[in-house]
């Protein structure tokens, strides 16, 4: 692949990018001090980086093309990775989930409180990812304002606690239900729209919620946020900070399990099929007798419900929330999790959340580049691997019919 022609092409690409990035990457000016800083080394890095990347880009493109022509001939056998076949076997699935659960249980006893706290955050994103996965992955509705529902949940608890002293366990369902209600209220007018409009309107809605929280001082305490939110109680027992964090961690583990359980059931239900059909072809879906609005609303409301629940937990964990926790960046992170993991794939989303939340935490040096990387991930995944790292596989069914046992081996 390293022919002269290829090298020439990559060289031209790198020249182009040196030109393209020149003003932004090389020059830095200070208009007050009237100084100019020339960072010539960046020319070298850009040239080298794009030279290499252009090889990678072309290689990946070729591989993708080859793969798609392969798949046409061999059916879906190639589409299933080793991991899929492995997880499809219930015996292994129990082993995997069993060991994951064991790891989760001993985790806080092996690692520090700080690590446990990070893990709790990662688990929260797992649930957020699974919630958004219902909306984006299954129903194919691009919701860019998902953080709004998260904010609704968090503020529900924060304000209920602040004004009425209401506890965590009452606020938890209240936050979820209120978020779902918001989902329905927003969904009724908006879900009639075509996909791309929906993306923008939800984005706008997310911003509106944040701006209202910031500006409506008497209600939400404005930009300074709400503090002194109570941590979740456990039959009225007083807990030290460490114990409380441990408690939240275990609560979160339980929530993750419950979420996986429910989302899995939803996905395999009559409703779950309707979502996927809706994603594939709206018109055909309606022609098959599926009520488009109701099905979309269900996805929207359920997705919002989970965001609301996690919002309440978030408020309880940090004991302080402000509108700054609910910017578009949060929505973008959750979307990246779903896209990286694999839209519509539960296991994928779990891995996606763990990778995207834990990696920047442990690679501190890279955390600055986090959002840059997330942007690149969204583009690269869509271009090279739209199904995600662990794509969803369609379920196959077995029959009770005695004459025809399920003998198909895939």
């Amino acid at each position: 692949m390293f022919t002269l022609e290829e090298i020439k092409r990559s060289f031209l690409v790198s020249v182009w990018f040196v030109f393209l990035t020149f003003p932004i990457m090389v020059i830095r000016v200070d208009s007050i001090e009237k100084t100019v800083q020339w960072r010539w080394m960046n020319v070298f890095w850009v040239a080298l980086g794009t030279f290499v990347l252009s090889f990678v880009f072309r290689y990946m493109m070729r591989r993708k093309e080859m793969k798609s022509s392969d798949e046409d001939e061999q059916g879906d056998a190639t589409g299933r990775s080793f991991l899929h076949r492995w997880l499809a076997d219930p015996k292994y699935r129990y082993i995997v989930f069993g060991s994951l659960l064991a790891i989760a249980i001993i985790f806080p006893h092996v690692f520090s409180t700080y690590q446990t706290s990070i893990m709790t955050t990662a688990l929260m994103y797992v649930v957020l990812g699974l919630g958004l996965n219902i909306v984006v992955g299954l129903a194919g509705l691009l919701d860019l304002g998902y953080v709004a529902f998260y904010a609704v949940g968090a503020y529900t608890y924060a304000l209920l606690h602040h004004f009425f002293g209401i506890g965590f366990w009452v606020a938890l369902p209240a936050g979820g239900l209120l978020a779902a209600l918001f989902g329905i209220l927003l969904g009724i007018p908006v879900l009639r729209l075509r996909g791309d409009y929906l993306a923008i309107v939800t984005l706008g809605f997310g911003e509106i919620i944040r701006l209202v929280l910031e500006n409506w001082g008497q209600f939400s305490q404005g930009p300074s946020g709400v503090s002194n939110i109570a941590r979740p109680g456990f039959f009225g027992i007083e807990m030290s900070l460490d114990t409380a964090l441990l408690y939240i961690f275990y609560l979160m583990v339980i929530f993750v399990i419950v979420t996986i359980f429910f989302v899995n059931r939803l996905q395999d239900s009559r409703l779950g099929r309707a979502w996927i059909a809706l994603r594939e072809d709206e018109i055909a879906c309606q022609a098959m007798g599926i009520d488009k609005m109701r099905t979309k609303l269900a996805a929207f409301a359920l997705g919002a419900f989970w965001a609301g629940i996690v919002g309440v937990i978030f408020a309880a964990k940090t004991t302080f929330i402000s509108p700054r926790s609910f910017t578009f960046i949060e929505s973008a992170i959750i979307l990246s999790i779903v896209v990286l993991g694999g839209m519509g794939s539960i296991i994928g989303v779990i891995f996606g959340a763990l990778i995207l939340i834990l990696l920047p935490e442990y690679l501190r040096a890279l955390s600055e580049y986090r959002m840059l990387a997330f942007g690149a991930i969204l583009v690269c995944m869509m271009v090279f691997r739209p199904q995600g790292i662990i794509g969803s596989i369609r379920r196959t069914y077995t029959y009770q019919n005695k004459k025809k046992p399920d003998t198909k081996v895939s």
Partner: protein
Amino acid sequence: MDYFIELLFSGLSRGAIYALIALGYTMVYGIIGLINFAHGEIYMIGAFTSFIVATILTILGFPALAIIVLAGLAAVIWSASYGFTIEKIAYKPLRHAPRLSALISAIGMSMFLQNYVLLAQTSDFLPFPQLIPDFDFMEPIAHIVGSSDMIILVVTTLVMIGLTLLIKYTKIGKAMRATSQDRTMAMLVGINVNRIISVTFIIGSSLAAIGGMLVASHIGQINFYIGFIAGIKAFTAAVLGGIGSIPGAVLGSVVLGLTESFATGYVSSDYEDVFAFSLLVLILIFKPSGILGKVDTQKV
């Protein structure tokens, strides 16, 4: 009354800026049916490029007019190059993919560019030099209508006329219109569709760059985030006018600019962005085809 006229003009110049950005959205949408989320970032990069070039030229002691022209030119060249490159990397490979994929890719590109400028430059607000001088002849009405408001209106009007002529009368304009109506058919009659798409991105990005420079000079500061909000608002304007329609984008922008100006002037400035978003939501709900847009019947 003066206050009213002041708001009127500030609304008009606001609208003019939105129009420069909205045209890029509308043209790209017309041709490939995609909301180019990264378009706001192109505008931001235009503002940054003109900022960098203008500052260097100021230090070197160039005359004001030369600075404006050269900074504008640089902004156009680089923004257009970015637009062109983005299309090749993030959209072209997805031309036959589901719509959702292209949209996600566009959002990713927008995030990438924002953070690229954030990391390569700064997260601070940068003071943008005032490129447009206060004209003497504007002196008597300067308390109502600023010189830069005037320049923005004039430049935008000229650009609009130029664009209209380009699309109506040149060969490339005809090819663009043909491609937007039916891409396959355009290909069959020998139009190089890839080239037309590239040209559309280049023109749209150039307009955004001009907008970027004008608004930066008008407001006096820039940072990496300006493209995001401006992008959403310009998109709102494009939808308001009827996405895909060029006069619609201009009309929608003016309506949005005036709405914002009067709403912040007479109601409350805290909720400036809320007005725009609410307007967007309301239009999409009650008249998704916009003021001048055609109602599209879905082909079955």
